[in-house]
């Protein structure tokens, strides 16, 4: 416990110092009357431990898995690949630690195959993520799945580079 606290303190100091550094140029450009609030915000945001998945500040911290909220799938498959398990585990940690958090799992498919079957496939992918979140402690009442099938592609070219981006589940927080 002691070592953890010491590590956290060290981390806090390190991050605080780096935060001060990054705010320096801002100070020179900002007028004297407005600089206090942004500096404070930057300091606290930077203080988040990227591996503390219960910390909401990590949603916007690119170093934290909580900032990653899209999981990709293989064609006609709904198994969550091992490379995405850590992302899902991070969100499970957040959702189970925050009873008020609500998540919608938006399931999507690529354009190949029929639209209604792809609605089913998108839902199955959403449910796969939902199942993992539940198994890791999220409450069923916190989770919702919506399938958009192939109706909302992020990319519209008919090749695999595009299809692989469209076969996805987006983890959308409706409440944090």
């Amino acid at each position, binding site marked *: 416990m002691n070592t953890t606290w010491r590590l956290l303190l060290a981390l806090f100091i390190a991050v605080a110092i780096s935060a001060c550094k990054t705010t320096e140029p801002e100070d020179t450009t900002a007028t004297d009357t407005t600089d206090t609030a942004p500096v404070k915000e930057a300091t606290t945001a930077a203080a988040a431990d990227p591996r503390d998945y219960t910390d909401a500040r990590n949603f916007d911290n690119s170093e934290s898995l909580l900032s990653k909220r899209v999981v990709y799938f293989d064609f006609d498959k709904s198994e969550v690949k091992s490379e995405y398990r850590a992302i899902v585990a991070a969100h499970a940690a957040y959702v189970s630690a925050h009873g008020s958090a609500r998540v919608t799992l938006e399931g999507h498919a690529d354009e190949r195959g029929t639209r209604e*079957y792809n609605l089913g496939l998108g839902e199955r992918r959403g449910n796969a993520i939902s199942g993992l979140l539940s198994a890791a402690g999220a409450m069923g009442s916190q989770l919702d799945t919506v399938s958009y099938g192939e109706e909302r592609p992020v990319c519209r070219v008919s090749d695999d580079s595009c299809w692989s981006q469209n076969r996805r589940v987006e983890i959308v927080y409706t409440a944090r």
Partner: protein
Amino acid sequence: MTMSKILEKAIYALLPLLLLTQLAQAKLEIEIVQGNASALPIAIIPLQWRASGPPPETSVGDVISADLYRSGLFAPLDEEDMVDRPVDAESIRYGTWRLLKVDYVMVGTVRDAPDGAGYDIVYQLVDVHTQEHMLSQITSVGLGDLRFGSHRVADAIYEKLTGVPGAFSTRIAYVSATGIGNDQNYQLFVADADGFNPQPVVGSPEPLLSPSWSHDGQRLAYVSFEKGNSAIYIQNVSTGARELASSGKGINGAPAFSPDDRYLAMTLSYSGNPEIYIKDLSTGQKRQLTNHWAIDTEPAWSPDGKTIYFTSDRGGRPQIYSVAAAGGKARRVTRSGDYNARATISPDGGRIAVAQGRGNEYRIAILETETGRMRSLTPGVLDESPSFAPNGSMILYATRENSRGVLAAVSADGNVRQRLILTEGDVREPAWSPVIR
């Protein structure tokens, strides 16, 4: 001349052009991409206009001619090659038409209906070789329905010469998507079978899909995401009145009216995964038809209403299965191909068209239920959503061209293919209406 005057002149000069592009944007253009060498040569002589008021922009004869041409079974003679223009069957000089290698000639007149409330299309169809009068009829239509009347005449000629009722006086429904990103707009349209007269039925910034006609041709069931999740609506095409048919948790999709329009088959996933349900439209009661952990979806009724065909991946990949509409054990129907989905059943019940996937290619394939023989009808890449014409002659489907959705139709024997291109938007999810009486 002042600058503003020049501008004004330029605007007036451009105005007709602007109006034309406006009109063109709403129109489907049809082009035969694969013809039929054995098409019947026929001459549709321009009909005499004897009605009061000016004749319509597109003449009755042109509409009939275009319909017959699109079917792929007829080769109408170009108007400029018509050296003679008889006004009735009695004045046809048969030798002339034999020289032009024409087998059939249609002549006719458009006149005011006796009650003045519309038009009478009076026409005759003759066989050039036997000089037999094959049809001698009057088709009466209301004032705004001359195109519809022309399609009815084409239907009669088609039926007389092929033995199969025509399907030209029917309609098609389809979804058009325009815009990108957050600025998407989806519209469900109903147009004449030749793409003219497109009328928006419903529009939404959220996806619309799976339009399905009632067999009385009055209503469309469809899926809309307008409330965030999928929901099924039933809308009257002429009055616009609509009702919510299903909006439970999970998927509400793939609506299909029973042949007697008393029931709506649909896919619901509130139980945890997609299953087929049948809703009694008079009582609102619904009954679960399938029960399997797999995806069961895309129900399609057999014409006698006794069987439901559906897509299921219970065997690992999507295939077509059948189950008695009253309930029972499901039986696998498609046996060849990795991916067979979205069945549509021919009006005689003998053929099932599907979207068949092989690797990255999706084609429309047809299965003969009697023999179990299956073959693909279209050159593919991403062909889906097959829909039979109510006479079984053609299958309308969605395909992609230059990253854009377009509609196409293929004859049930695969010999004739045509594209229907809406000049704007990504067009998909076609559904051919039943015959409108």
